[in-house]
């Protein structure tokens, strides 16, 4: 092997696995799912760049509509002779399960590469554990698991070699995030070695088994009781041979690369008495801890199960040293109700079969990427030494309910002396993570140096906090857990100091780098007490730089990454300063070099400025500050919010005990109001003098921070001096005042309101009636204003005009302060939904952006109103949302029917007039509902006095007498792709459900993958060269049914039309579908222009607005109304303002021009079709008969 060929590189687990998988396959059928998506994206990127596999071909990458679809396509491709793979995780793997049984049953060689992830149970989690792979272990796939990035890379190849030889298909898994997203130094397998591992005779044998009309066979038959059983037993010899085949492949791999693997890998004491058995990254923590303990004389060892299926009992027994007296088996999964988790059961069974008298306990750890650290492993070893060790234990949590948990030392430090550890607290938008990934590369560039990077994000899409954990040193970094003792801590955002214990993980004598707006001689006084105390107590070296100021000056916006990266290298001394600077500059040139000089120059200037502006602070001897960390939530917050939500917000969620968590996934709503995030320095401010009170700012506000009220003049009594107020300009409210209050601490500064404001100051060019201003000077005043504003009464709903934007601004939003991207195009629709129907709204929410900003802890935005009523929200899955919502409707309808029938029978007891009034009441307008609620309240009073069975039952169903509004909400990935079958089926039922599709035309949540809503000529992942076919016209498909209410809306183009569509859909007693154009960060636009882009989308005919109302057909009228005028903009004038379209003008200018022409023609023709429809006679539509 040449030196160059064995060179080390740094990459994450996904890249390391994809590198192999891409080279040894011909077809990849995939569907995006976190955390495995990057593997598929890389394969697609390499394919589009023409990178070849080991046979010189360019693999085909096919995105499917779901993982179920991907598995079907994989199966078909395998049956047709191509070497085929897929990448998936979690729910995706579960969706593949039926095909996995088929693929294995037919003895088809294939490797599925899995970034193992939690399963959605009481809650969804995108993070890593083994629940997914354990759930599919019965399928007959071999299972091989990696503990590190290097192992993931190597075992991917070993699995491929083994599957070809054994014909048993394999799952090759690594731990989601911990390994898939950890950047680490590894030695790549050279292409020659990959080539040498794959036996072409076996590849040809696979091809020969493929279906072919040249030598036809039948596969996929149906058997009867006489033969199925026997046929199922035919594969035993193949499974029996597999372990040896895998070991042979491992041995061959060792010959080629020098890295040796065993089916079961033991590390530790030569004659261990206590043994820990585990798989995945936890096994690396276990073996490092065992080694460390063994070196101190403890008779302990760790066994990693590398090949889990087929489970080779013989190899296992041989790998367990004879000296072992007690064993703890660690499972990163949960099997409620079982006698133990799967690996534990396998171990127990294997030992029992061999008659080995060893005490075995089993326990769980690390679910959902719960950090698994040496102290926890030691706790398990300690438990094994106990007289009566706990079985079915947990480690890593505080289980104060069932007492399963083991105590552990969270700070046990076993890392070798030579490892440097650094922590960086950054903002998602400031480039910290990118810079740190780059630093890892720089640090590991030289042979013999190793580096590791792992990145922790919070769950917000705007203003997210990131914590980067970097290690580097002269030996491979084998520490897949978070850093608890850092010798370098950088805080890239000053405000973090006020809410997170940033220096808690600083080791004594560490260096602390702070980005602060304060000069070196003033910064000390700005620090909270506990920060000062950390600095003094731990004798930290303290340096400060105003990186944000420097970045602003250099035109780098919020990107402080280069500046702070330079500071890190300059201070830490990990590389000679000049060398570090040279390498940073080289990497800047590499990143931006092709893009002209300005960006490179600015970043070079940033490097130079960083060194000039960096100052060491002389640390006083005493703590001087009077203030400390802000409490995460107000002291008067509800108990749960303080005990649970607040702890999560403060970064102490790991310490929350089991007893504090609800057992069934039920959480109180509306907790975002306790989290004052203050993510933007610029916030909206109202100018009462020129405001025309139109409500255009309020309706588009994605975060519900613009609230308006009207009230009697007398309401201003006791108002703070600065409280803004104006006479209301609507007729019929003499003497009333109007106030628009911005919730400045929740404002993200997105500026959608400013751009949507129709007012132009007559005297000041560019000034609107709402403008962005610096928050700091107004923060205190506005806090007081908000407090007073909240004391003003809410406008009465029955007096509000629901029909226009001006009126709707006065409706209380029951969806507020969500963590969506600043300027999100989806959330204004949800806020509107909550305003219009919130008090009787039940929402089924498909997984995606809307389920993340709608339901990701710590805080959630759906809330109850002043009367305690509000949207009841739930997320089931991604693929089943329409069905989930239909289920709501079925249950509601059934229970309403029961309630009505009970009520009918009780006319004598509770009064016939009331009963008839309730049963016949119209329930359409707000006043209808007010009246019905009053009747129901009267009924409740009567029923509460009664004890008969019927009354008690009716009381339990009484709420159903008020018509409930069921909304089924999700993105285009759900509606057009994965959930389309369900969407179609649910729409085809005669049930009153409302489907709202927040159409961003791309998979937004998982990072911009193409969906069937992606337009012709737009670039997206899996359509990098531009989508070649037009988007699906889902609206026309639904219209074809004839009895579905269908609307296509775009708030930025025509908010009144959107409003009408919402109300008509809700009122329509059958199925309704609203397609809501939602601008998105994935379009590559300045988000402040989002609503303008919506307007352009409609004005160019790209997104025509229309409503199809079957009730009009019933009246003999044309049900189709085209609400947007003929295109008056060229498509180009809309499209080329978005990076998704424009990027192709660079990538392939001529192709882009062709696609633009095609897209223009498609848009023109689509509009003409709609125009034809709108011009038809009503009788020319499918009849829509009155219900019998």
């Amino acid at each position, binding site marked *: 092997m040449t030196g160059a060929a064995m060179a080390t590189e740094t990459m994450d687990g996904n890249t390391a696995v994809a590198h192999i998988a891409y080279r040894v396959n011909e077809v990849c059928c995939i569907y995006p799912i976190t955390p495995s998506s990057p593997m598929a994206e890389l394969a697609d990127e390499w394919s589009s760049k023409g990178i070849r596999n080991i046979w010189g071909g360019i693999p085909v990458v096919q995105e499917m509509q779901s993982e179920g679809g991907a598995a079907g396509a994989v199966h078909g491709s395998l049956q047709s002779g191509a070497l085929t793979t897929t990448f998936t995780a979690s729910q995706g793997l579960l969706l593949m399960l039926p095909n996995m049984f088929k693929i294995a049953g037919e003895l088809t060689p294939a490797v599925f590469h899995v970034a193992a992830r939690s399963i959605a149970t009481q809650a969804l989690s995108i993070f890593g554990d083994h629940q997914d792979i354990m759930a599919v272990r019965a399928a007959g796939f071999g299972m091989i698991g990696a503990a590190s990035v290097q192992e993931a890379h190597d075992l991917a190849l070993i699995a491929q070699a083994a599957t070809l030889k054994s014909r048993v298909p394999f799952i090759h898994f690594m731990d989601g995030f911990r390994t898939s997203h950890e950047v680490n130094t590894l030695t790549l397998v050279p292409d020659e070695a990959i080539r040498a591992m794959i036996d072409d005779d076996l590849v040809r044998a696979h091809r020969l088994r493929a279906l072919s009309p040249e030598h036809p066979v039948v596969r996929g038959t149906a058997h009867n009781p006489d033969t199925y059983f026997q046929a199922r037993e035919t594969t035993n010899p193949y499974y029996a041979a597999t372990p040896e085949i895998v070991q042979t492949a491992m041995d061959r791999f060792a010959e080629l690369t020098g890295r040796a693997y065993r089916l079961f890998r033991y590390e530790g004491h030569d004659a261990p008495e206590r043994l820990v058995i585990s798989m995945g990254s936890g096994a690396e923590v276990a073996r490092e801890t065992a080694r460390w303990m063994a070196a101190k004389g403890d008779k302990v060892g760790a066994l990693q199960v590398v090949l889990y299926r087929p489970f080779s009992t013989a190899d296992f027994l041989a790998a367990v040293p004879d000296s072992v007296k007690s064993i703890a088996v660690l499972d990163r999964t949960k099997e409620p109700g079982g006698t133990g988790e799967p690996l534990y059961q396998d171990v127990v069974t294997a030992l029992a079969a061999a008659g080995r008298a060893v005490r075995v306990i089993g326990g769980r750890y690390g679910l959902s990427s719960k950090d698994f650290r040496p102290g926890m492993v030691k706790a398990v070893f300690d438990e094994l030494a106990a007289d009566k060790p706990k079985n079915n234990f947990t480690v890593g949590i505080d289980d104060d309910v069932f007492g399963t948990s083991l105590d552990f030392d969270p700070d046990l430090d076993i890392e070798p002396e030579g490892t440097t550890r650094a922590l960086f607290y950054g903002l998602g938008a400031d480039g910290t993570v990118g810079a740190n990934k780059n630093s890892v590369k720089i640090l590991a560039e030289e042979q013999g140096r190793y580096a590791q990077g792992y990145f922790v994000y919070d769950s917000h899409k705007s203003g997210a906090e990131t914590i980067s954990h970097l290690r580097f040193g002269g030996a491979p970094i084998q520490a897949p857990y978070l850093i608890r003792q850092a010798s370098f801590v950088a805080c890239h955002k000053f405000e973090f100091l006020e809410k997170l214990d940033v220096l808690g993980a600083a080791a004594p004598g560490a260096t602390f780098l702070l980005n602060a707006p304060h000069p070196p001689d003033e910064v000390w006084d700005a620090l909270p007490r506990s920060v000062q105390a950390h600095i003094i107590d731990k004798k930290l070296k303290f340096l400060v730089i105003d990186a944000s100021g420097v970045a602003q000056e250099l035109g780098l916006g919020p990107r402080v990454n280069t500046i702070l990266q330079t500071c890190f290298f300059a201070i830490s001394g990990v590389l000679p300063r000049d060398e570090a600077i040279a390498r940073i500059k080289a990497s800047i040139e590499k990143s931006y070099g092709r893009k002209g000089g300005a960006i490179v120059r600015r970043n070079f200037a940033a490097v130079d400025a960083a060194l000039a502006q960096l100052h060491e602070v002389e640390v006083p001897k005493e703590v001087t500050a009077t203030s400390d960390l802000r409490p995460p939530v107000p002291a008067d917050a509800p108990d749960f919010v303080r005990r649970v939500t607040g702890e999560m917000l403060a970064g102490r969620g790991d310490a929350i005990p089991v007893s504090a968590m609800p057992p069934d996934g039920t959480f109180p709503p509306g907790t975002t109001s306790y989290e004052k995030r203050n993510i933007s320095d610029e916030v909206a401010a109202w100018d009462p003098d020129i405001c025309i009170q139109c409500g255009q700012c309020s309706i588009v506000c994605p975060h519900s921070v613009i609230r308006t009220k009207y009230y009697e003049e007398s309401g201003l009594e006791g108002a703070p001096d600065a409280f803004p107020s104006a006479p209301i300009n609507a007729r019929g409210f003499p003497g009333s005042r109007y106030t628009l209050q911005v919730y400045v601490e929740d404002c993200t500064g997105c500026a959608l309101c400013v751009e949507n404001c129709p007012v132009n100051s007559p005297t000041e060019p560019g000034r609107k009636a709402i403008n962005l201003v610096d928050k700091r000077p107004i923060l205190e005043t506005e806090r007081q204003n908000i407090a007073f504003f909240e004391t003003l009464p809410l406008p009465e709903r029955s007096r509000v005009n629901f029909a226009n934007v001006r009126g709707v601004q006065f409706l209380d939003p029951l969806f507020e302060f969500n963590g969506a991207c600043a300027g999100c195009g989806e959330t204004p629709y949800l806020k509107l939904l909550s305003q219009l129907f919130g008090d009787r709204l039940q929402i089924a929410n498909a997984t995606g952006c809307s389920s993340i900003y709608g339901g990701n802890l710590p805080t959630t935005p759906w809330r109850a109103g002043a009367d305690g009523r509000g949207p009841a929200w739930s997320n089931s899955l991604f693929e089943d949302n329409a069905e989930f919502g239909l289920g709501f409707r079925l249950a509601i309808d059934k229970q309403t029917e029961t309630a009505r029938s009970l009520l009918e029978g009780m006319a004598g007891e509770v009064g016939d007039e009331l009963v008839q009034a309730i049963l016949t009441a119209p329930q359409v307008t707000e006043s209808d509902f007010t009246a019905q609620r009053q009747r129901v309240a009267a009924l409740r009073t009567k029923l509460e006095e009664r004890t008969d069975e019927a009354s008690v039952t009716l009381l339990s169903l009484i709420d159903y007498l008020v018509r409930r509004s069921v909304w089924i909400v999700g993105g285009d990935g759900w509606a057009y792709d994965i959930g389309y079958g369900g969407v179609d089926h649910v729409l085809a039922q005669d049930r009153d459900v409302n489907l709202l599709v927040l159409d961003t035309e791309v998979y937004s949540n998982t*990072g911009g993958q193409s969906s069937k809503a992606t337009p012709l000529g737009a670039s997206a992942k899996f359509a990098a060269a531009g989508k070649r076919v037009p988007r699906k016209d889902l609206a026309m498909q639904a219209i074809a049914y004839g009895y579905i209410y269908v609307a296509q809306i775009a708030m930025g183009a025509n908010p009144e039309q959107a409003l009408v569509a919402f109300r008509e859909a809700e009122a329509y007693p059958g199925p309704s579908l609203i397609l809501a154009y939602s601008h998105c960060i994935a379009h590559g636009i300045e988000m402040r222009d989002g609503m303008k882009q919506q307007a352009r989308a409609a004005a160019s005919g790209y997104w025509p607005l229309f409503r199809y109302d079957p009730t009009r057909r019933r009246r003999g009228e044309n049900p189709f109304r085209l609400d947007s005028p003929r295109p008056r903009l060229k498509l180009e004038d809309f499209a080329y303002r978005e990076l998704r379209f424009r*990027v192709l003008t660079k990538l392939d200018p001529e192709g882009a021009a062709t696609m633009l022409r095609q897209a223009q023609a498609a848009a023109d023709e689509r509009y003409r079709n709609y125009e034809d429809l709108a011009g038809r006679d009503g009788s020319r539509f499918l009849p829509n008969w009155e219900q019998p």
Partner: protein
Amino acid sequence: VTDLATDYLGLKLAHPVVASASPLARQFDGIRRLEDAGAAAIVMPSIYEEEIEAEDAAFSSLMEHGTLAQPEAAGYFPGHSAELGSLEGRVETLHRAAAACDVPVIASLNGSTPTGWVEFAHQLEDAGAAAIELNLYRVPTDPARTGEEVERDWLETVRLVRNAVSLPLAVKLGPWLSSPGNFATKLVENGANGLVMFNRFYEPDIDLQTLTPQPDLKLSRAYEIRQPLLWIALLARRIGASLAATSGVETHEEVVKYLLCGADVVMTTSSLLRHGPEHIATLKSGLVDWIDQRGFDSVADIRGRLAAARLAHPEAYVRAQYVSILTGYGQDGK
């Protein structure tokens, strides 16, 4: 047969009508269309270094927006789209056009930094440009800078590019100079092989509704040929460089006038935008008819017949015109 052949920057052209920088020549298809319509050479729209950089900065910022900010989405665009620069697309179009067209495709460049001028020029040369037109225009907004300083910078730019590439260089200059002739001579001394006269400038209007400056560029009209006509007449055959006339070409008459004053080629954008690329054929046939009707044989026959160099006292000629206009004004009853 009328011989329309001419020579521009050492390039042999079949006739003197050249399509100057315009949106028509932005894309490959448009360039082919201009060639099919009969353009003798095609100048692509200027590549503005500042525009490229601004576009790249905007791209980078949009591309980076939201990347690595949350665990599920490392970014929102296909990985390799981030690697694309704005210049590459333009250079690629030039590359394809140069390979596909039989007529010369000339690139136009407007740099803002010395490195930009040189690097961009290298790329244009590598992509197969037949020549480079340097678009020197820049508003000297700093009142403290003298005209001499400004001119020195421009000359320095020409020298830099001259030293960097071996392609023929044309310089497109503006008329607002104290001594255009002197500056033209210096341009040639510093390496320009030809001069394009004159550049038309962006002069914003004001929108009284929004109180904002409104950028728009009006297409040129035939009356605008006067100034270039004058200076081509004055410089033709005196400075040892090709001369291209641009501005105000609407019919073959302007073409003829420019040629008579000594232009080697006549460039037009506005007329092609107004009438379509096919207008080139109309200009050409008009030119042929005029030459034939006047009994000339070729473009070479008429070129420079009214150039100042052919006259004994050009200064006096210019002044005489000035005086005659003044003295003659009102005499015909106007």
